[in-house]
């Protein structure tokens, strides 16, 4: 087996884990399933697309040829993606969380409301951009790093490192900040958190914005290898959801482990000649079903407590 497949699997796992962690975090801390996560993904992709339309000519005019060009472009477009994801997360908070969070059946009602947001967003994007696929500029350039026996494409390296950095920062922030402490309390025991004076109403906003920006990051990383269309959010959403389930909703480590397993599984299935790409989704699904039949709370149940 080619060693580069490991890199490919890691690359996939990075993007999947970004989606899955977002869904998982939101469910465990706020108790809502965000069906508009795919919409957030697409919205940040499109806003990055628009921003690159403005920024690339300006940067090319001023910085072309210098060593600053790529870092400035990467930094500016990534921050656009993160910011637009966060803003869309705040919009979801306003529409699907604030009016609903104190009503009975919140989990299902917010699921429906976010579904509706997803429908509206996809229709709006189809209406304003059309169904044609768009390609984002290659941020990291074309090239490979040769390291031991591995040959890593720039965008693969950037995806893996970027994801690790972002998740690392997120975990550090969770560990060291006041808000992070409160969010962790909400994840462990929402009632206990409420009793000790943590307002879920107030703390849901940073969580939503954070998960939104994770989806934004996933969008900009995935768009390096594939095209973008208004309906492109469906598959990342579904993969994110199933991986979050596999990892056990509410467990960051579980989501990362699940993403890694699914990424490796995808690569292996694609390589086996009699299976091929056609069976990738099916085998992933069957694998997840088998794991869930054995462990209904997913892999996360092994690692830490998950929300019931």
């Amino acid at each position, binding site marked *: 087996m080619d060693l580069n497949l490991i890199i490919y699997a890691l690359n996939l796992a990075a993007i999947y884990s970004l989606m899955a962690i977002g869904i998982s975090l939101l469910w465990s801390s706020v108790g809502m399933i965000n069906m508009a996560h795919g919409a957030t993904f697409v919205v940040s992709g499109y806003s990055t697309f628009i921003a690159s339309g403005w920024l690339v000519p300006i940067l090319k005019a001023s910085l072309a040829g210098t060593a600053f060009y790529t870092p400035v472009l990467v930094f500016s477009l990534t921050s656009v993606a993160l910011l637009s994801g966060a803003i869309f997360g705040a919009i979801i908070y306003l529409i699907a969380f604030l009016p*609903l969070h104190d*009503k009975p*059946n919140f989990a299902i009602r917010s699921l429906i409301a976010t579904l*509706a947001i997803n429908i509206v967003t996809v229709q709006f994007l189809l209406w304003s951009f059309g169904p044609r696929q768009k390609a984002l500029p290659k941020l990291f350039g074309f090239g490979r790093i040769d390291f031991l026996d591995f040959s890593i494409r720039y965008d693969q390296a950037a995806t893996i490192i970027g994801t690790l950095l972002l998740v690392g920062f997120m975990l550090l922030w969770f560990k060291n900040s006041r808000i992070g402490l409160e969010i962790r309390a909400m994840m462990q025991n929402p009632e206990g958190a409420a009793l000790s004076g943590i307002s879920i109403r107030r703390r849901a906003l940073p969580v939503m914005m954070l998960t939104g920006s994770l989806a934004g990051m996933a969008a900009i990383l995935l768009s390096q290898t594939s095209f973008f269309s208004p309906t492109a959010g469906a*598959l990342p959403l579904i993969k994110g*959801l199933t991986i979050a389930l596999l990892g056990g909703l509410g467990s960051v480590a579980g989501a990362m482990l699940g993403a890694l397993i699914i990424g490796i599984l995808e690569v292996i299935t694609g390589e086996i000649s009699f299976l091929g*790409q056609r069976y990738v989704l099916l085998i992933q699904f069957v694998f997840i079903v088998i794991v869930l039949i054995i462990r*209904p709370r997913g892999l996360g149940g092994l690692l830490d407590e998950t929300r019931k």
Partner: protein
Amino acid sequence: MSIFKLNSDKQITLQAIGQKSREYKLRPKNNSIWKKFRIPMSRRHLLKWRTSYNKKSLIKERRLEDKRPLWWFISLISFAVSIPWLSNFALSAVAIFCIYASINLLWSLTLGTAGIFSLATMAVVGVSGYIAATANVYFGVPWPLMFVIGTIAGLIFGGFLALPSSRLDGLYYALLTLGLAEICRVFISQIHALTPTNGSINNVSSFIPEDWYLQRPGLLLGAASSFILLLLALLIYRLVNGETLGRKLQVARDDEEFAEAIGINYHSARLKVFLISCAGLGFIGAFYAMYFRSISLGVFSLDQLMLLFAMIVIGGTGRAEGAVFGTAIVILIDRGLFELGPMRIVIIAIVMILVTTYASNGITGIREQFRNFRHRFQTQKRSLITTKGGEIMPEEAIDIHNKQIIYSRRFNSRLRNYLKTLINDEVIAEHKANPVGKHSYELTRLLNYFRKAEVPDKYAVAQIGPLKDSQYKIFAFTGDPEKAPRVVDERVYSSKNEAYHAIFLLRVNDLLES
């Protein structure tokens, strides 16, 4: 009202309060037993008539307790009658409405009756539709057998889907099954044999003859047969939800441990309902492929699934009228505002957000929600009453069975309030001048009230000393037969009338203080 005419010659006019008097009631003339028609093979009656006796007139009357069957009958009949007069465009909308409503009915069996939050509905419909279409196109199976193949395919697929349902609960299962349609879509789109047609199977033979297809008679036949499909789905919903399986699961929904304790195997009941629903969805899948004479990957799209889910949510989960009504609203927006283009999907989504935000269980649940709201509002309003004044507070009133007590207390309190307004210097002067004898209206009312009071509130005059030149003292009754009356004060009155007046003043004082 006329009910009193029957019993007596006296005519009493009663005011009709509330809506009950407007309800249609049967008044049987004699006491013979009513032989109602029973549905063959069952003990059920067509309508739920209940006999009771009017509490005031004691006349026997029969009231229709559940009017929903009538509404269903009227709306289905008028719907069926209106089909031949519709335009071609409306006919296709009617057929789509009927197909989607049937899917939603079977889906709400899974969601509501079985309580399995499955989102794999369109996957079941699509897979069995594809299998039935494949059997027809590639293996030459005649079209009537497609229904059988579709049903069996749905049943088998449902069996696979049911495997994780016993282990996973609620949202976990929903999220798992959500991806299934997408997986089917990707899987079928990569089958090489179907690549030239972009994943769709065309030229499926159908119950609509080929030369009628997309013509007026074909559309009429399509609409009529989908209407029959809707009726079948309603029948299955009624048979599953209203009979043994549904009743068992209703107990389990309320309290699982209790259901288990009285011997209900709700796991197997849940599984049966799920399988029945999947088999029905398989049948609809075959029908779907036949109605459109083709089946394409669009059936698996996430938007399609979400649109169907929107229908159930807008209508209200767990009830047949919710599934049908929600479908009607969404199809009306989708087809009726066709010229708006993609905006109509946005309108549907906005309706969806509004319904989830404001209605607790869809549009058909609004009536119940409003009643709950009104009840809560009234209770709140009642609990805001803080002035007591001898009356019974509303929260005490519910504990008192004899409501007469409540009303007598209220009457007494109002009487006291009225009598207080009668007390003035003139009345007191009149009593002082003449404690015994004929009095004015105001004083008579006051004295009558004082006389009527219970013993503990009363005073007594005691004669002290010799019979001649005796003096008088005032005692108060204790109300306890074992305890002697107590002395009120040490004042001694020289005449009986003076003592009477003193008692009067005491009582007036008591009244003013009450």
